[in-house]
């Protein structure tokens, strides 16, 4: 595959307030670098992430979407991430079924203590999306940057 070196993907990361957002903060506190491509949206729980937010991101120009939540069993709200896991598994499977590249979407469990994991995950995800190139299969042409 041809990789455009200059391609800077837009990556939206939905992070739950209690674990992953804190994990992202921790990677900041520890000065652990990850690409600027990643922009975080804070949600109370990963289970707040509606599939339509994910599609919306792709529509408006995102090249990759990652959802981060507390590890299963550690949800601040007890069960939120278990629902997330089912919903997102099925959604990602559906996107795959429609021929959307698998590496454009990810779900990762990052605890408040895992600043290093957060940074490493974002590094890897950005690299994966970069390798895929711009999102063409699930984009809205009207939103493409001129």
């Amino acid at each position, binding site marked *: 595959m041809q990789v455009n070196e200059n391609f800077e993907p837009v990556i939206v990361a939905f992070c739950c307030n209690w674990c992953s957002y804190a994990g992202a903060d921790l990677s900041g506190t520890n000065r652990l670098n990850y690409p600027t491509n990643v922009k975080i949206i804070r949600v109370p729980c990963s289970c707040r992430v509606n*599939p*339509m937010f994910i*599609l*919306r991101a*792709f*529509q408006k120009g995102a090249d990759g979407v990652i959802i981060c939540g507390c590890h*299963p*069993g550690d949800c601040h709200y007890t*069960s939120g991430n*278990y*629902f997330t*896991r*089912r*919903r*997102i*598994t*099925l*959604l*990602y*499977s*559906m*996107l*795959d*079924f*429609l*021929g*959307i*590249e*698998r590496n454009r*979407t*990810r*779900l990762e469990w990052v605890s408040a203590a895992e600043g290093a994991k957060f940074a490493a995950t974002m590094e890897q995800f950005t690299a994966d999306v970069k390798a895929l190139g711009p999102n063409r*299969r*699930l*984009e*809205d*042409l*009207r939103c493409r940057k001129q």
Partner: protein
Amino acid sequence: MQEAMIKRAKELLADGSVDRVIGWKRGEFAYDITPAVFTSAEELEHDFVFDDFTAANVSKYLVKETAKEGKILAFLKPCDTYSFNQLIKEHRIDREKVYVVGIPGGPKLDIEKIKAKGITGVLSVKNEDYTLKIETLYGEETMPFSEAVLDKCASCKSKKHVAYDELIGEDGDVLESNRFDMVEKLENMTAQERFDFWRGQLSKCIRCNACRNVCPACTCENCVFDNPKSGIDNKAAADSFEENMFHIIRAFHVAGRCTDCGECSRVCPQHIPLHLLNRKFIKDINELYGEYQAGADTTSRAPLTDYTKDDCEPSVVHERGVE
């Protein structure tokens, strides 16, 4: 069968057990049958029809009908009873206001399949020992019954009535169906092939909403696609993205609730195999979270409002099939 149904409907109307009857009404041609509510013996005798073309699932109408006064008799085919149960489960139908008479299911015929054979000007269709004798403006034609069967009937999942107050005819069994074959075939394609397949299909969509409006799982008071406050409302697919968006979200919203009645594909004027999206979810749910048939009962927890602590991770998507 039709006679037995009319007879029973008349009895139940006459003894006051029910006030109305929902069934099917004959049309102008052999095949253009409309779901209808009957209130008198005369109407039943004159218009009631039950034949090879009465495929429409009338369960969804019961949402509207049971909100009215009085009790209604509903003739439900096996597949319709699943939709019925699912609606009961979601508190959309008042069970007390329905008298369900289970009737035999299909296979039902698809007029479009007959026309696709180049048989046009259809005036009547007769099933003679599984050969269709079709009288047309241009002479008589024949074709095998099996080739004109509706797709949804060709992959029938069950001949069993999961809800009824009485049955006319014998009850059947849940069937071993081949309904996931096409899903599997698609799964085994490359991502590019799948993408091309679906782009080809979904680009035909004219957003007429027939799939949504016929769907017994789509009974929202106000659909997100009609609701400007939802942020995703749209009336037409102005971009291929919106074609995808509508069908993904719709399939997702009915995931775990879809009984696989197949009405979406039956009514699609563009012949988009929309049921494959729903079946993909059903297949995934069965494989990942255990066999689940929406509408099989009225009490079990739907897979998407349930979980186990050791559910698989979404990375399972990466580990299956080809990319």
